[in-house]
């Protein structure tokens, strides 16, 4: 791994489809790199121990708790955060459904839920309620009681299917 002359390691990876290069403190977690070095504050701190799911992102298409991943581990990888879900100004189907159906109350856990739900739909475009429940069981939400979250995922699936039929 390349390092700068004064010792800070250099990291080169892709975030939300764009190349990023930076020198970073080697102890920094991916969560801290995203929030502090790149200003992508959509990904949240909830515990820094991998217990709440608020910091979930996708690394090379697989879910990861960014508080448990070192920034340095992401060399050459592709990271997707909540900021990468919308296409330009257009919200993703999941974002639209979350907004419409009350799946975001305080909104603090929402980025983690959206990322995990997106991962589910990427792997399984027509999940059952039980599959949704299982896919999101590592994400804690204290506001909603989860039911409107489940419904939003189902709504996004239904709208997607309807869009494909048109």
């Amino acid at each position, binding site marked *: 791994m390349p390092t700068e002359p004064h010792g800070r390691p250099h990291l080169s990876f892709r975030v939300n489809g764009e190349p990023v290069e930076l020198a970073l403190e080697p102890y920094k977690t991916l969560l801290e790199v995203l929030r502090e070095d790149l200003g992508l504050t959509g990904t949240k*701190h909830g515990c820094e121990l991998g217990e709440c799911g608020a910091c979930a992102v996708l690394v090379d298409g697989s879910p990861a708790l960014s508080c448990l991943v070192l920034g340095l581990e992401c060399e050459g990888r592709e990271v997707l955060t909540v900021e990468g879900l919308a296409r330009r100004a257009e919200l993703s189907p999941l974002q639209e459904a979350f907004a*419409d159906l009350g799946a975001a109350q305080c*909104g*603090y856990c929402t980025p983690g839920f959206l990322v995990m739900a997106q991962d589910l739909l990427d792997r399984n475009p027509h999940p059952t309620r039980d599959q949704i429940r299982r896919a999101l069981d590592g994400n804690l939400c*204290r506001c909603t009681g*989860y039911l409107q979250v489940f419904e939003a995922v189902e709504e996004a699936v239904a709208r997607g299917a309807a869009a494909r039929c048109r």
Partner: protein
Amino acid sequence: MPVRDLRVIGRARRRVDARAKVTGQTLFADDLRLPRMLHGRILGSPHPHARILGVDASKALAHPGVHLVLTGADFPIPYGILPVSQDEHALAVDRVRFVGDPVALVVATDEATAGEALALLRVDYEPLPTIASPEEAIARPSPQIHDYADSGNLHKQVSFAFGDLEAGMREADEVFEDLFFYEGNTHLPIEQHAAVAALDPDGRLAIWASTQTPHYLHRAICKALGLAPARVRVVACPNGGGFGGKSEPHRHEIAAAGAALRLGRPVKLCLSRQEVFYAHRGRHPVLMRLRTGVRRDGSITALHLSTLVDGGAYGSYGVASTFYTGALQTVTYRIPRYRFDGTRAFTNKPPCGPKRGHGTPQPRFGQEVQLDIIAERLGLDPAELRLRIACEPDTLTANWLRVSTIGLKECIRQVVERSGWRARFRRLGEGRGVGLACSAYLCGAGLPIYWNGMPQSGVQLKLDRGGGVTAFSGATEIGQGSDDVLAGLVAEVLGLAPGDVRLVTGDTDLTPVDLGSYSSRVTLMMGNAAVQAAERARDLVASAVAEELGVPAARLVFAGGRVFDAQDPERGLSWPEAVVVAETRHGTLGTVGSYTPPRSAARYKGGGVGPSPTYSYSACVVQVEVDRETGWVDVVKVWIAHDVGRALNPVLVRGQVEGSVYMALGEALMEEMAYRRLPERLTGEAGPLVHKFPSMLEYKSPSTQDMPPVETILVEDPDPAGPFGAKEVGQGPLLPVMPALVNAIHDAVGVRIHEVPVTPAKVLAALAARAAGRPARYGPTEWPPVPEVEPLVVPPPWEGGDGRALNEEVRRKAAPRPVAGVTRP
């Protein structure tokens, strides 16, 4: 104005702040970064009770990257949320009272450096004896945790006698006496508390914080730091969950402000998850005794409720919490004679405070489980019993609270019908059961935290030439949807879409005071202020448009972004045109609205806790399956009916109901703030009272896998006190769930659990007791020797009282006013 259909209110729609939340653009306090910002970490006490003999910061200060170390000596002025409990300092001055009590602050270039420096601080402590429970507080009056306690380590003792209790008991056919225990639990917001303090370009202090109550934080910072209010700005960032835990000034907020003042640089202070557990201010553990006299028809003749409240180490909202454990029984059921004794003890644990339901879920749990016992003994259906004893509309209660509209009976009827209660109760077979319970809650506390006669909510509107409308309000968005309520109400009155209304909220520099997002007050109080401001703006615009069009103002309709003649809808102006006409006629356009709750009929000391402009009601049925082998309780389904007056946005109302049910199931089944002393051989008597599991992994809260289906029924009977008839929904629906669940367990396996959380071990213990021929219950069995105090004697309305106590010296500021609508229960 001509009456027209509502276009916004009552329609299910996307909340106005939804886009920000699903894109991650909502800026929470921890998301803020300012140039030259430094970072702080706080050293918490390792002792539950100790004198601080000295702090040596020299090594920490010498650590590279450290800019500042502060200790209690830097914060000599005490503060606290209640005027009667000014017992906190940002950092402990000479004594620590719980493990985690903040002792010192290190500010450094980054959090990691600050953390390294914490380890270099040397603090000398002299450990003191500790108190782990109210029972120990009774037994051990010294050393006192606080010297301002009523006596020894009993922080506050209150007692009220509303009517002749024993006469009521003599009228009863049977008297029931039961003990219950409600374990403490915590809010567990996913957002950890955070604050950023800085000096603005003019040298004034500004702080952005995860607070539910910017106005109260503003007052506390000014007091604790000796600053003039005009020199301090508090901005409440959207909260990543509050639930009551961010509704009082927190140590880190005052500490960050003090550090920024000294350094002249921005300072960010974020709590770790463990620190959030120790900051706490959550549900008080409460031991309860209910003695209830009942006639054969189920009517209550008298109730004596005693509560013993574990307050933790500081006052917090605790005096109010203690009053609240006794306040709302009477607004639910007719109780002609009522005695309430409440005692709050200081203990060496993190301070308890307000959590969703504030002091009322605990006695509600006891009362609703006892009603189930009463119904069983009297051979009455639990729903029928409650229908018989529910309060009537437009009545004053024994403790002088006014019940105006009450949808309780309708809630019971609907939840019974929708759940198929009659086909399920006692008919589901072994191991399966249903239970029912009810509740009531405030729609805003009738009195502010500090005495004043000013409005509790203010809203300002600005109309600009382009048709833009901006609403300014001190209310704080904590997820509950206050932004959406504000925009929705203004939009409805002005005939606009909610998204047309720009919002500026929770900023003491820019917005009129709103007391904050607590006590379920925002929808009703801020809502009424918003409606008033919007109606004044509408009238200004209407008068100008009327002149322009030659149409009487009374005929103008505001709808669909237009102002037009009701008799000739084609004749009208677009909203931007109407605003231009109005500004031409009136000059710059702005209006204000404000809300002050009606004066309470209760005029006895302590009568300030409980009054509310109106009350919401809920009824709940829970179905469970109980595994006799493991004691595991599986919640099959929850049906809940809530009297919301009118649902302003049904999507959000349903979310509040379901979120309440969720949080209630956590409290009922798994959540507990449990502490332990380390073994004496390791530590001596003063061994740490440490939290057993200050992490989100081990402090169990329900996950997606634990959440049952919920059928939500909204009972809408618009209340004249609420904006468009709305009542609260954020807290009330939590209350009936715990007792309904415990009643369902009894229906399933015939045992009663008089204690939450209902863990499998408790169910098994009750089943074992039953099998051994002992009482089929689990829960407390002894009421400790709580010292008696002389009650305030307050005759109920039907005994000729005037809302005052007989044995209290009262300066009569005004002649007694006649009280309307008094009927004897």
